């Protein structure tokens, strides 16, 4: 190892290990003192003193403050297929704080495994004693009462998990400069422990489907010997090679084809037979493979499409939960949704081979949604200046013609303006030009004039520009308006603006007045007579001079009371005239009657002329009249239909909301009569109408 050097910004030092001198656990510190004489002859020993010491370390759960970062980011989507997932821990000794097996002091006890959907099941909260494979006992104190575990078959361990000797290679310590924000990323001491996974998450190129993965930081304590014992390696791999999918065994018999063909029966014994003894992992794997080949399990392509459709909902659901859940519950709920695709009781499904449990300290899921990675994304970017229309690719020869675009072709001018629909204040729908702050060429700013002043708009309309083609250019007016609204949306800004205006502009006004006073010659003489200071002098003079010529200083005086408006009907006989004109009888007759019995009685006794028709029946006859009547009936039926069922004893109507709308719309049109919903009243003409309509409605079927 090179001699320790100082790390500088932008550099880092990799170290293989940070092994703590004491592993986690309970220790007894014994102190013994032997007392000797001066000539070294022993006198005796002081009684030994034992002190108990516990070195604690996470075991089933990673404390949140120990996690610095993980890659790929949790719940992210991206092209990660040529990168190994990793987790960075703040405490450099963490991966070596426990012994995965007695005596294995240099082997890390943590491993990062990456599993695809269906390869293993992640439990919910379980008491820690149940978080390890039955039979394995982890002695010593536990950090938490409940934890999660990954339940996994021998096949998956052999295919996916790292080998025992690989663990040490997958953990290292990185030393960075604490002040290097890019590398240290908020660490306190500049030493970080990194655990790398051994699996490249793959993208489904054949079906172009994203694949979801879960990365789990597992504890291999006590189970070091159970780790992968794979066959010899080969060069290359197939990105869609099927590892294992327990969900295939849990397929409910909902597929009618399978039921009819009876293939369910062949699959069932696999699930039903509970043969615990399956020691040879590879043998069991082979048997499972055979069963999978015999039973028409869903093909891998079908699988991935299922996973993809689920992914679409899962990622969104995780985000949804993260945004909506209450603060206390968010962590638990997000993890719960993340388990989608990893849920299920694996141990009940898999009976032909042994299943194992590994405590999971931390887990997160991510989705591989493309191939190539960052480099290919950046190389594939469409580069241009803002204002560039997307490239139109000519359709290949023989392709069906493209359907017409639902919107008109975009108008992007060379000046950077965009044609947008504009609803004017008068309601006209026109098109206007708009250019945002992001232009395709440099622009100039207003330059100050000779006095050093700049033009300043006070309302947005001052910035509207009309263009020779008859449209308006609203770019700057829109900018002004959104600036105004943004300022108004923040009370603190409004307050600051008003305070600035009140305090500082006020002060500058005072300073100006002071400048004027200095030059006024009269002031000096006046001040000689002042006894109580300038303020009193000024105020007294102001009041006195104002009192001398109030009309000039303040305003002309206003009469105390305005003459009232003349009431035309207050004159003698005016009211009679109004009423008689309204009802069409003679005013003179009322005037005469009133002499004796008073106005009210006179009005009551006066006959109101009523026009009478010669016949009882309708004025109109014939087909035309029938048509009108039918129309009226239909309208009445329609308008009253809903009111009918709501009549209450006593003749009143319950005027609920629906009732009110009907009445309003039906009777008055836009100026509908609105009725007081609560007043009880006697049946009136409308009620009669309603009653008739309801009777007719009852007869309707016969009449048709």
């Amino acid at each position, binding site marked *: 190892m090179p001699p320790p050097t100082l790390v500088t910004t932008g550099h880092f030092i990799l170290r293989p290990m940070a092994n703590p001198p004491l592993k986690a656990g309970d220790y007894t510190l014994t102190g013994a003192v032997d007392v000797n004489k001066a000539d070294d002859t022993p006198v005796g020993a002081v009684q030994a003193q034992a002190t108990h010491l516990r070195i604690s370390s996470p075991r089933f759960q990673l404390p949140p403050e120990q996690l610095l970062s993980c*890659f790929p980011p949790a719940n992210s989507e991206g092209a990660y297929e040529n990168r190994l997932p990793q987790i*960075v821990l703040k405490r450099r000794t963490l991966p070596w704080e426990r012994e995965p097996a007695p005596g294995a002091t240099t082997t890390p006890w943590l491993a990062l495994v990456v599993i695809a959907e269906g390869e293993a099941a992640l439990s919910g909260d379980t008491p820690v004693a149940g978080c390890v494979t039955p039979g394995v006992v982890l002695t010593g104190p536990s950090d938490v009462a409940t934890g999660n575990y990954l339940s996994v078959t021998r096949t998956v361990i052999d295919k996916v998990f790292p080998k025992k000797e690989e663990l040490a290679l997958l953990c290292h310590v990185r030393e960075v400069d604490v002040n290097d924000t890019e590398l240290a990323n908020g660490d306190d001491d500049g030493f970080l422990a990194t655990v790398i996974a051994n699996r490249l998450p793959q993208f489904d190129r054949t079906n172009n489907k994203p694949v979801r993965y879960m990365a789990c930081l597992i504890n291999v304590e006590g189970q070091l010997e159970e780790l992968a014992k794979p066959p010899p390696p080969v060069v290359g*791999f*197939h990105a869609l090679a099927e590892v294992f999918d327990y969900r295939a065994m849990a397929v409910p018999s909902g597929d009618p084809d399978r039921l009819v063909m009876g293939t369910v029966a062949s699959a069932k014994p696999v699930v039903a037979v509970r043969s615990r003894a399956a020691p040879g992992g590879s043998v069991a794997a082979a048997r499972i493979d055979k069963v999978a080949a015999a039973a028409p399990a869903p093909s891998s392509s079908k699988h991935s499409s299922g996973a993809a459709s689920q992914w679409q909902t899962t990622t969104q659901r995780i985000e949804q939960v993260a945004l909506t859940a209450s603060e206390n519950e968010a962590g638990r709920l997000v993890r719960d949704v993340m388990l989608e695709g990893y849920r299920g009781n694996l141990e009940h499904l898999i009976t032909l081979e042994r299943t194992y449990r590994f405590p999971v300290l931390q887990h997160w899921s991510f989705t591989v949604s493309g191939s190539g990675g960052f480099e290919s994304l*950046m190389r594939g970017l469409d580069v241009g200046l803002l204002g560039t229309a997307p490239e139109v690719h000519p359709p290949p020869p023989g392709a069906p013609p493209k359907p017409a675009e639902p919107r008109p072709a975009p108008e992007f001018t060379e000046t950077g303006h965009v044609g947008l629909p504009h609803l004017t204040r008068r309601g006209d729908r026109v098109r206007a030009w708009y250019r945002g702050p992001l232009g395709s060429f440099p622009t100039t700013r207003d330059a100050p004039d000779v006095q050093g002043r700049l033009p300043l708009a006070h309302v947005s309309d001052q910035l509207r520009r009309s263009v020779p083609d008859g449209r308006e250019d609203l770019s700057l007016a829109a900018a002004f308006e959104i600036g105004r609204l*943004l300022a108004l949306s923040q009370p603190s800004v409004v307050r600051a603006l008003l305070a600035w205006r009140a305090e500082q502009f006020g002060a500058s006004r005072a300073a100006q007045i002071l400048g004027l006073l200095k030059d006024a010659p009269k002031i000096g003489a006046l001040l000689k007579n002042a006894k109580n200071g300038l303020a009193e002098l000024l105020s007294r003079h102001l009041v006195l001079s104002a009192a001398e010529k109030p009309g000039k200083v303040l305003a002309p005086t206003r009469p105390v009371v305005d003459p009232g408006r003349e009431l035309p009907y207050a004159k003698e006989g005016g009211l009679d005239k109004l009423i008689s004109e309204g009802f069409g009888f003679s005013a003179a007759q009322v005037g005469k009657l009133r002499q004796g019995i008073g106005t009210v009685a006179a009005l009551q006794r006066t006959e109101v002329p009523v026009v009478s028709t010669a016949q009882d029946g309708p004025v109109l006859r014939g087909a035309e009249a029938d048509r009108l009547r039918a129309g009226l009936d239909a309208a009445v039926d329609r308008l009253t239909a809903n009111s009918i069922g709501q009549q209450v004893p006593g003749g009143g109507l319950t005027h609920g909301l629906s009732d009110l709308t009907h009445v309003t719309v039906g009777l008055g049109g836009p100026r509908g009569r609105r009725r007081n919903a609560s007043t009880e009243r006697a049946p009136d003409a409308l009620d009669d109408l309603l009653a008739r309509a309801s009777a007719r409605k009852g007869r309707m079927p016969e009449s048709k």
Partner: protein
Amino acid sequence: MKTFSSTHAMEAAVAAIKEVQPGRQDDDPSFGPRVVPGELRGWLARLRLLQGVPFSYLVPDAELLPRESIRFFYLDRAWTDALVQGALSVGTVNSSDRAELAALYARVRDEVDEEERRVRLPGGEKVQQGAAGAVSGFVLRSRAVSGWPGLHVRAYDRELGGPDAAQIPESDPRRMKLLRMERLAPAVMLVLFDGVPAVVHIEEPRQGIQFGVRLKPMSTGTGTDPNNLQALTKPRNALTGEDVNTNDNDMVAVPCRPGTPGVLDIAKLNEALRVRADTHMGAAVDSAEFALQMLRFPYRQVFGDPSVNASPPMVDVFRPTISLKVLKQSFLQS
């Protein structure tokens, strides 16, 4: 009794007004006394950098920013000035307010220009001072933004020679300061530069250094299945940390576990790297040496690299649907 002279009155009046004066000028710790109060200056400068402005005001048509695209632009100072004028108009009530504001506006604009550079100050960097110039930037809409949070963007006024790993502080005169860099949406990033850069670098985030391999399609002889992949890695000299050579074909094939997609045989890979003499790895390879071999340096995309294309034809980078000629004609017709 003391006679009250005009001098006394003046002194009293001046003293009274002087009491108001501290509020008249905002004493800024780095700029000195300023007219606009500090909080307001900061807010106006952030507004000037388009903070809070709805996205549809920036990119008025979705077709201006298609998926997987980067669009460069010049910031229209007239537009952002109008934005500030709109914000200032909030406090004006009567015409005397407006007259006073109009008299002061030139100073307000200068002070906000100055403040603009202080909005985004990375730790340990000094505020740049000087007249406000042109501002440019880009909008990037890509999965690279959503998948790689914390991209590094650097802009320079000339192509830099020297090693790629050279650290150039933000205060370096060759480097253009970033006025703003923000993700507006999960996959949309807005960056503003203080000036018009010649070269722009976008780099993969360095936080959490990454480990990985290079994937290559593998022909199996039976056909071309894009899912048949081979993993390769370029060996590095463990003593220097540099690649052993520059030959792209001299790669070490990464052994994989049979029947499993993407699972690498770390132990065997380590062995394959160790037997190469030029890696200078010790007999007992430790995890640090192994990590060095697997380290992937962040990818850096360079825009405006003169070695690639001196100046692309304008038609490649700017394709409006209505040319200036057509626009002029429509103006003349109406």
